């Protein structure tokens, strides 16, 4: 039986909405990670702040942005890989 993995941003990570409200910034002071995010990435980060599964993240893109499922899967996978590479994500792959 497969267990659904929950991904979550590390608790020290801060999210700050940009002045134009079209996205925001991911800030992790201990690792000096500063990432500017567009609207869709911002939405994924919002979900990851409280914890979300890969399927939930894909759902956010397919429903909120009318992105085809295959594209959403690819984009979420890339996004998670990027977050892991900067060390701001907890949780199993």
């Amino acid at each position, binding site marked *: 039986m497969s267990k659904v993995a929950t991904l979550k941003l590390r608790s020290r990570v801060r999210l*700050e909405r*940009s*002045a*134009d409200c079209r996205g*925001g*910034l991911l*800030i992790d*002071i*201990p*690792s*000096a990670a*500063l990432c*500017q995010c567009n609207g869709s990435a911002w939405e994924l980060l919002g979900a990851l702040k409280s914890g979300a599964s890969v399927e939930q993240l894909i759902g956010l893109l397919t429903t909120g942005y009318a992105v085809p499922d295959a594209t959403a899967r690819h984009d979420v996978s890339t996004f998670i890989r990027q977050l*892991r*590479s*900067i*060390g701001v994500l907890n949780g199993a792959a």
Partner: protein
Amino acid sequence: MARPSVRVAVTGFGGLDNPEPGTAVARALRLGIPQGLTIEALGYDPWLTGAYSPGLVDRVHLAAPLAAGDEAVLARLVEIHRAQPFDVLLPCLDLEVPVYSRLGPRLGQAGIRTLLPALDRLQVVTKGALPLFCYENAIATPRTQFVASVSDVPFHADQFGYPLMVKGMVAGAKRANNREEAYAEAIRLNEIWGGGVLLQEVIEGDEYNAAMVARADGSCLALVLLRKLGVNWRGKSSIGAVVDDPDFERDARAILAKLRWRGPLELEFVRSYKDRQLYLIEVNNRFPSWILVSHWAGCNLPAMLVREILGRERQGPRRGRAGVAYVRDVEEVAVPEDTVETLGRLGSAEGRPLAAGPSRTRRAPARGQPSVRVAVTGISSFNDVMPGLGVARALARAPEVAAVYGLGSGSYDTGLYRADLFKAVFQLPTVQEPGPLLERIRAIQSDAGIEMIIPCTDADVERFIGIRDDLARLGIRTLLPSASAFARVDKRHLLPRSGRRDWDAFYVPEAALIRSADAMTRRARVLGFPLVVKGLVHQAQTVYTQPAAEAAWRRLRQQGQEEVLVQRHVPGEEFAVSVVCDDEHRIVASVAIKKLKQCERGKTWAARVVSLPALTESLGAMLREIGWRGPLEAEFIRDAFRERFALLELNPRFPAWIGFSADAGSNLPRQAVRMALGEAPLAGAEDERALFARNCREICVETVRLAAFVANGMVTHA
């Protein structure tokens, strides 16, 4: 008078745009030991521009060149020590450390204390030996190969695969994407450092550095961990932030333990994007040039090292705290010629006293005097120093200016963090279309009430010419040429066509625009060698052979340049004249300089004012014919053979050294503002005894502020 309690000699104040670490070490000592500190700066030529920073060092001395041998080095050091005693010596250059390590016991006998690694420990971290050290100690490091003969580089590079890093045996490293780049870089690095080159696997990832101090027993006194956030064209970290990373710290401490080190040390790593593994890529036997950030991180390593050497450091192991970052910008100072001359002649000179910097509280304009809020573009020194920084520095001394605002493009604009120059900095759109630019300027005017804009890059001058009429309707003054005059000073048009004309005091060397490899070959045969090959934006290179000319062409083509300018090489000293022209295209103000020190990319880092009335008059005739209006810089070489000036280039804006015009008594940006306000130009009286010297200076920034500009479109310093 009480004897100063801490007397330190420091080396490494040169390096221009690739700063040697001594300047930052001295700055850290000034902050970390605020009372009773004297600093003796040691160097090898009078152009130690970092040592001329006001209030930084007490005296400057010329040391014996290392090539003169240990005895000569020791004798000169002892001579300096007798005249100006110091207790501690901090060598800050890689090549010095083995020499002073060898001389350590004899220095001790002379009363000069050091904390340096033993020679055998220095040997294991040389670039050639490091891979073996890593292998023996199971430390992850990129695959590396030593190539003794540069002519073998193409063969080995092809075996190695691309991309790869080509590294000099002492310093310097560049990524090469093909055999040609690898070979060219190997030749360049071998010419500088000798001994062959290293080819190294590229690990794609973020770069991290650790600066450390090891006590005499090899234990870690303190460390600061840094992540490089902005790496410039040279591959050097111009922006970096202190991090708190337990894995990184564990690795750094473990390596230090295996090194059995004494004194300062820098470890350089790449952390792979793929698996976050840290790879050790280099070990430097001295403090890095970013070391000033250690003070802001609460762990001032140079000050701790000095106290440790003097037996006064009582604190336990410490580490820098995350949350602070540094941004490397520049400091420009006027140095009396006596200082440099005395240093060259006598071998020692007094340091520069602390001077009051430009006040952030501007003098209120006199009653009835016009006052204007000015915005300038080109406010970064991240890659090259842009003129907007110098213009802002000059305008800080213009009573006609109520406030200066910066117009930037991204978080790497170092001017964003210059609270001493700008009241606020606003982000401009990067797109070329005039609509978004005008819309943004309108919003900025609404926020800050700007009344005048001085674009300070070639591209910005062109952009603002496109919206000049709209700006005038908004009540924003500019001092811009017409689009046709702008096109006529473009080197693509100016140089190949002007060769037919003689301008009394100067001539234009023969040049041609090249659009193919065949054309390069043909033209090189006509112009001969040496030959100057110029990209149309920047990057001039002198080549000496036909294959080198063809390689330069291919390299510029690979960088996307469709056209390349080739020009006959003119040997001689370089000069520049900066002017402001009025609506009648007459020069209303000018300053001429002789360039004394230029960085690798040809930018001026030291200069002196000179009087060149005939040259300026001939330039005026040319600019009248072109129909120029506003600021401009003309660059010349005094042809050593023909004994005439040769025009190299016209730049449609102020030069980056223009802040010096205010120091030298003829403030050209101020003259430009007065002209825009309809005020008469001021009579200039240039001080020809003042020299211009620029050095790198780090600015402390909270890490979180690095992202604020992009997120909010502005930063304020008010």
